[in-house]
């Protein structure tokens, strides 16, 4: 089991449209700031179990935990540049993706 260093959120892709989604307290959210944050290894394991359940239920695919930091407003932001990209959209097309208000952001 990997060491638990940072708080984590669960990221996935929505099966039907491929959009990036985050597990929130009542289902999958299109806005990462509404993601449920795991602050302990057990909580992360619990998130993963929910992810597995929703893979089996054919709601989401490509599910994994991503490290985040918690901002002053209490909302999580991914630490790695790859996931930073995923919560926004292509850096070369600021007019597209979540950063442009598509999806729910």
């Amino acid at each position, binding site marked *: 089991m990997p060491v638990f260093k940072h708080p984590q959120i669960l990221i996935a892709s929505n099966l039907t*449209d491929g*959009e*990036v989604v985050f597990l929130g307290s009542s289902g999958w959210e299109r806005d990462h700031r509404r993601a449920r944050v795991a602050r302990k290894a057990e909580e992360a394991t619990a998130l993963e179990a929910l992810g597995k359940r929703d893979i089996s239920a054919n709601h989401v*695919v490509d599910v994994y935990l991503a490290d985040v930091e918690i901002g002053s407003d209490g909302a999580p932001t991914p630490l790695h540049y790859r996931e930073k990209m995923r919560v926004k959209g*292509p850096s070369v*097309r600021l007019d597209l993706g979540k950063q442009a208000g598509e999806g729910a952001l």
Partner: protein
Amino acid sequence: MTAVDLRVAQRPNAPMTTYRYDEYDAAFVSERVAEFREQVNRRLSGALTEEEFRPFRLMNGLYLQLHAYMLRVAIPYGTLTARQMRRLADIADKWDKGYGHFTTRQNLQYNWPKLVDTPDILESLADVEMHAIQTSGNCIRNVTADHFAGVAPDEIEDPRPTAEFLRQWSSLHSEFSFLPRKFKIAVTGAEHDRAAILVHDIGLRIVKNDEGEIGYQVVVGGGLGRSPFIGKVVGDFVPREDLLAFLEAILRVYNRFGRRDNKYKARVKILVHEKGIDEIRAAVEAEFAAMDRSVFAHDPEEFERIAAFFAPPPYESLPATSALLRAAKLETPAFANFVDVNVGAHKIPGYAIVTVSLKPIGGVPGDATSDQMRVLADASERFGFGELRVSHEQNIILPHVRQDDLFALWSMLDAASLATANAGLVSDIISCPGLDYCSLATARSIPIAQAISKRFSDMSRQRRIGKLGVKISGCINACGHHHVGAIGILGLEKKGQESYQITLGGDPTFSASIGEILGPGVTAEQVPDVVEHLVDYYLAEREEGEAFIDTWRRIGHARFKDVLRREGEDGADI
């Protein structure tokens, strides 16, 4: 009268410069769409798990990327009709976000389709005789060819009938759809290789023997990716009637003995490397000898039937040079630059081949908006028999334009921001999507291309530098061909940051070579500086008529390395 003739007769305006489906092709593609629609339904219902569905969606060009699904549409041997180009534009508007990305393997990628919409997209493609079959997956991929096919003065034979012949043969092949890994075939029929055949799983070069008969030199085991290899000759002269049998023999050897224990070692290049080309050649020859070749016996009629579609368009007989063109060049310097850089010799007097660059300064290499696609379609109809090509440099080609029409064409392109005069120059950069779209990426590549392009935005400086291939990949998979860039750039991750490794001396043509590493990785901000230093050093050292790669080959890698080291010590910011 055959079924084929009937279909073409129904469309008197259809240009004949590319293959047209007959009733069998049309039925096959629509069955493929119906099958995929069912596969999507079964995926949604859970009859197929994601693991089971993945190979089937990939075999239809559907990936899951960073932000959305991605659909890769085949443009077989890079040839498109105006009608097909318009359809690509319409699909971009209706089901995507108004643009598409032309790739190095003569495909078009849509970055935002929904899974549930893809069957409709495929149906719309089928309507214009297009598909996404085998644009991904561990099968025989879209067969590519020289983008100047049929019009290049240095051609022995148009490679497209061969490519079409192979496209059909490889479609949903019973035996070779679950190979150890993907399998890419490229064909060229010219003296100069514009299809990068030496870095494909199989490269075919059409050759003539001493008796004047046409055959194929067959090269196997080239590839890029994390371990780049130049292909090796497995058959020196394979007569046309044996081509399918010979390829089938290679594929069978690969299917049986290619490694499946490690996906990074599963390509045929690794098999060839580990066993040696002699052992592979022996195995292929033994398999070939054991086959009942009468089954494959290629019918000349079938080849002729296909070849007839690629007959030359009705050219006019024109003087070799155009007075109109000469006058327009004198009058409009920007046009003169365009002609000098983007226009090439055509085998027919009075005609020219025009490269439309999809690399505007600071733009996204290979991207075209739906409006631009429509302009290109219109331009091809007005000035080029309604035919377009996609090059592996991610540009669009109008293959037959009257020299007299060049100025009018240029004006039309210029109005649509499509007249960048940089074909083959330092800002004509090949770049993969990188981390802006790709889920496998370790770093971004498009912003690097944009920064270099902006650094060299002075077009007269670019022309002074001359031919220079800059190629960028966002990870070791090398989709941006960085190994064969005269300057190659590979995006990696180093300590949680994007980092770029630079190589020099790559060459994708018959004189193929794999680039050598320049030194430790640099940051994104440093890349344009490094490229600029390298280019300045080349300019200082080059002899008359030398391109960057020639100077590098003459004076050697070490000297270029030294330059950077010296610059670094001087405190320059690299």
